[in-house]
C-alpha cells in the first residue's frame, strides 16, 4: 500500500496479537464447533474509524482530511454521498499512528517541533517497531474489554438499527425466536459463540429491546 510502510519488516510480518486473558471461566468459549480459540486471542485485520480513533488518537475528521489530501487512505474506502465507508488494516493503522507521531515531534531538549509550520529534519528514526508493538497491545486490550455481558443496544447502521447484543451483530429478535422455538440458552450459545448465556437471558427477558 504505502511504499515506505511495506518495506519495514514489522509490517511484512505483522506481530501476533498478544494473547489476552483466558476468559473461559464465563463458559463463552468452551462450546461451539467452529471457534475453539478464544476470540481475544485472534488477530484482527479490519478496523473501523471508531477503533482507529480509540487506538491511535486520530479523529475521524482528521482521517477524512488525510484521505482527501491523498496522504493516507484506508485499504477499504468507499464513498457514499458525503460519507466514507472504510476499514483500516493493521498496517494502515500503523501508518496512521506514525503520521500522527510525525505531526508533532518532540526534540531532545524537550521543545516541540510542529512540521506544519515549515521544514522539519528528523534527527531520529520513526519508531515503527515500537508503534507496531504498542498498537498490537492496544488492540488486544480493546478487544478483551469490549463485551458487556447481558446488555442490549441499538447501533446506527447495524442490522438497520435493530436491537442487538452489545458489541455484536446478533439481533435480539433472533435470540427470542430461537427461545420461542424451544432452544435453551446453553444451546443458543453453542450456535452463537458471540453471545453469552447472560446475553440470551437479557434478550429474552425484554430489556432495552
Amino acid at each position, binding site marked *: 500500500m504505502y511504499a515506505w510502510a511495506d518495506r519495514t519488516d514489522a509490517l511484512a510480518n505483522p506481530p501476533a496479537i498478544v494473547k489476552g486473558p483466558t476468559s473461559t471461566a464465563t463458559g463463552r468459549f468452551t462450546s*461451539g*464447533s*467452529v*471457534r475453539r*480459540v478464544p*476470540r481475544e486471542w*485472534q*488477530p*484482527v*485485520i*479490519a*478496523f*473501523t474509524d*471508531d*477503533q482507529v480513533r480509540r487506538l491511535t488518537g486520530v479523529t475521524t475528521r482528521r482521517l477524512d482530511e488525510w484521505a482527501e489530501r491523498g496522504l493516507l487512505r484506508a*485499504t*477499504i474506502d*468507499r464513498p*457514499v454521498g458525503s460519507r466514507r*465507508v*472504510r*476499514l483500516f488494516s493493521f498496517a494502515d493503522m500503523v501508518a496512521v499512528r506514525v503520521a500522527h507521531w510525525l505531526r508533532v515531534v518532540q526534540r531532545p531538549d524537550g521543545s516541540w517541533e510542529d512540521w506544519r509550520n515549515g521544514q522539519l529534519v528528523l534527527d531520529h528514526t520513526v519508531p515503527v517497531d515500537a508503534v507496531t508493538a504498542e498498537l498490537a497491545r492496544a488492540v488486544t486490550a480493546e*478487544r478483551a474489554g*469490549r463485551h458487556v455481558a447481558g446488555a442490549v443496544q441499538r*447501533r*446506527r*447502521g*447495524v*442490522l*438497520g*438499527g*435493530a436491537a442487538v447484543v452489545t*458489541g*455484536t*451483530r*446478533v*439481533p435480539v429478535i*433472533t435470540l427470542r*425466536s*430461537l427461545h420461542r*422455538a424451544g*432452544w435453551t440458552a446453553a444451546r443458543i450459545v*453453542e*450456535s*452463537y*459463540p*458471540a453471545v453469552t448465556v447472560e446475553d440470551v437471558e437479557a434478550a429474552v427477558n425484554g430489556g432495552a429491546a
Partner: protein
Amino acid sequence: MRFVVDQCVPAEVAALLQARGHDVDIDDDLDIGVLTDEQLLAYAADKRAAIVTTNTDFVNVARRRQWASVVHLGAEAHALEAAERALAWLAQHPLPAGAVLRVPRRATVAVMTPLRG
C-alpha cells in the same frame, strides 16, 4: 466460493461451508461484531466474498448498495437446512455481486433483483 458469515448465522452453518471446501471468513480474520452493515458489505466486496446472513434488515441495506452478493437464509432455527439448499443452488448457478439469494425454509430458492441505488 468465498463466504463471510454474519454473526446472526449459527456456527453450524460456517462449519458446513468449511466442510464443503469453501473459504469461510469467520471472526478469525475479521472482528465482525463492531462492523456496521455497510462496512461489512465493503469488506465482503473487497474479498469478493458472498455474505451469509439470516437478517432481513441487513439484506435491505445490501440490496440498496449492491456491493457484494448475499445469501439470505430464512427460518433461523433451520438455518442449516437452508444452507444446504443454498449450496445446492450455488453449485449450479453463479451469484452476481449485488444479488441476493433468498433461501426460505420451504419455498423455492430465489434470486432477488437488487433495488436501484
